């Protein structure tokens, strides 16, 4: 019964987006059918089944088999004392996890990193997008320049970053020219600046494209009308750009938070499994737990992380719905 309602709703939603007109205004009535619709299978109520489901199905099956399934199975490990022949221990693994110094260090560093790098990245990419949107010529070229870091393989860039921030690298060479003492960039707290820089360098282009798309979707008429009414640039930004960019802003925020977890790849390649304590992230903890095959800690940490990301995403989407025009 529930299945039928689902299909009905889906059909309705597709109708709204203009992709299918099968069931427009036909709740509870027999639909008006075209010839092509006759080729489709029907459900028990006589409504044609939405074939788009069939296109989604392979991906959906893959998602369940390779993501949801293993995650649910791994949840089991979070509640036992050892992977084989384990005894159910309730929330003991969670209690221990929140007493684990390395985990807390990773959690603290990850939160600090997200807290600094995500807002910085969002603001910088917005600024760059607005500048590019104002440029009269070579818009595509500028956008391309900022997109290049996205397509450069991490391995080759890691080589550059290591050479740049090495104790005897280019950064210290430049400092030396300025008469400043060498800095141990990768093994002191300065490494935090390095990873924020790498994160922004890598993700600025992606966010910029999202913002550019958002900016282009705002009708020019709004700005013209506002200028005629005497609004200045700041008022235009505050009352038109910011308001209409809100859905994009939330999307960029979500993507930046997700991408901030991906910066681990570069950190790992530059500084290894055990970097300076200030950049030891949750992914370091989980990666090291994976290699030492400590399934309990790995599964528990994953569960907590998934929970945090789900709640955060849900909150951001709710916020978006609230503040969107």
């Amino acid at each position: 019964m529930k299945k039928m309602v689902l299909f009905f709703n889906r059909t309705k939603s597709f109708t709204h987006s203009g992709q299918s007109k099968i069931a427009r205004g036909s709740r509870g009535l027999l639909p008006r059918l075209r010839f092509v619709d006759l080729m489709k299978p029907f459900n028990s109520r006589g409504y044609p089944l939405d074939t788009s489901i069939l296109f989604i199905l392979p991906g959906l099956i893959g998602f369940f088999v390779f993501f949801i399934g293993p995650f649910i199975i791994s949840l089991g490990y979070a509640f036992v004392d050892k992977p084989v022949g384990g005894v159910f221990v309730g929330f003991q693994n969670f209690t221990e996890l929140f007493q684990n110094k390395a985990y807390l260090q990773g959690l603290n560093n990850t939160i600090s990193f997200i807290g600094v790098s995500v807002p910085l990245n969002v603001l910088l990419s917005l600024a760059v997008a607005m500048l590019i949107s104002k440029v009269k010529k070579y818009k595509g070229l500028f956008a391309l320049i900022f997109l290049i870091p996205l397509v450069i393989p991490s391995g080759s860039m890691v080589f550059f970053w290591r050479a740049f921030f090495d104790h005897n690298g280019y950064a210290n060479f430049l400092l030396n020219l300025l008469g400043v003492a060498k800095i141990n960039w990768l093994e002191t707290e300065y490494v935090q600046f390095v990873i924020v820089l790498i994160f922004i360098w890598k993700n600025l282009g992606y966010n910029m494209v999202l913002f550019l798309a958002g900016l282009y979707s705002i009708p020019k008429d709004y700005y013209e009308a506002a200028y005629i009414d005497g609004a200045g640039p700041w008022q235009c930004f505050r009352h038109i750009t910011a308001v209409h960019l809100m859905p994009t802003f939330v999307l960029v925020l979500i993507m930046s938070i997700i991408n901030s977890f991906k910066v681990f790849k570069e950190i790992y390649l530059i500084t290894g499994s055990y970097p300076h304590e200030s950049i030891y992230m949750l992914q370091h903890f989980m990666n090291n737990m994976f290699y030492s095959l400590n399934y309990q800690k790995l599964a528990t940490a994953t569960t907590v992380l998934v929970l945090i990301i789900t709640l955060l995403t849900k909150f951001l989407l709710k916020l978006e719905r609230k503040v969107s025009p």
Partner: protein
Amino acid sequence: MKKGLSTLCIAALVLSLTACSTAQTADTPSQKNTGQDVLSGEIRGEITVSAYETFRYKNFLEEAAKAFEQKYPGTKVNISTFSKMPEVKTSGDDDKKMTIMTKGDDSQARVDYINKINTELMSGRGADVLGIDVLPWYKYAQSGQLEDVSKYMDTDPAFNLSDYRGNILQATRYKDGQYIFPLDYTFNYFAYDSSLFTEEQQKQLQMDDTFTYENLIGIGASTYKEVSRNTEKPIKMFGFDERDIFRKLLQENYKDLIDIEQRKVHINGGKFAKLLESVKEYAEKDYLKPSTATGTQITLDSLQKNKDEQYFYKVKNNFSLLQHFNKNSRKMAMMDSGQSSSGNEDNDKIAGLSANSDGKVSFSYNQAYAINSNSANKRTAWEFIKFLASEEMQTSLQLSLNGLPINNNARSEKAKLSVTGELYSAMMSPQENTGGGELTDEQMEIYNKYIKTVDRFSDLINSFPVTDTTIESMINAEIENFFNGSKTADEVADILQSKIELYLSE
């Protein structure tokens, strides 16, 4: 739909938990087994023994497996080893023959093996008996993957602890459990070149059973200064370079700096930096042999050249004790890396064991074994380990040439076989092989002196620091920055403190 999905998730969660509980219930009897429960089982069926080091383990294990299967019909022992056999090159003529075995350190192969064993253990499979060579055994012990064999040692009437070196077994206990069972042990002792010391200094070197590097330098420093000033000959205080001496100093002080069992790190407390600084000071005072390029070929000429060099002190292992007492014995140089050298040994005398400032004397082993706690045939696995530690197998040449058997009777027997030369008969040509039979009076005298010294030194062993290959890699990488001058000792200590602390807190 939401409700349906939630129900599905909960059902899956419950199912997975049920699956876990079911597995747990099935295993509960064996999990809670006392030694008696296992020992009441039959010695039969198939077991698998897995080790990384092919060179050290394979021949011995295959010999043992064959003998075990004959002794216990109905059993089958599968042996699996992982690393490549060393490259063997023989050079020289009939008079002087030299065989060099080069064993490359394939770190990737080691990591692959550890990952393989990890995966097998965590999935509830894996070998029944594990050779503990490169494995992080303390982690397995902690996560319940290894069997505490002390319950079998206590309850098995056929196992008598007094037949074995109790202090060696005691030293390898971890968190009140006996998770690994070493089959042999080796220790290092200091020897000195008596031709370079005054009578008074020699008396000082004979007074104690244990010495630290600092003690030795204190005794020999003034003479070294004088001798090295007045001679053209290549004389040094020690026959190894700064990295080697640092590793030895670290090994002696390991537990004070990194206590893996208690998860405590004291590297930035000053002691580690002091060790690094003292090594630098030794190098500056020219006490150490300059580093030789890695990959330098050892030839008969280079060995001859090595004999022309003189060192105040040498670090030798127990294998050299026999040669010390039996000057006429066939010389078999055991050179581990080609970096350390003993130089001229004609005037060598024994000083004492290498110890740290707290009197801790550590040892190493060639072979040790553990039982997988998920093994379906623990009874046979324990019997096989016991068989490996029996007199029959402990006198085998395949066990190790330089290791001392943990079995007391076998140690005496192996010593006799070493003195007569029978132990090495397999390695000799028929012309050379004159050993065997009863000990002559002269051989008996050598044997008595040798076994007395071995026992005296073995009694002093009281420590076996639990080490970890990841921590070793961290230290090796970081001290390089000190030796190449890019970081100070304190900087290195601070970085290592933070990294190792993080590693141990995971």
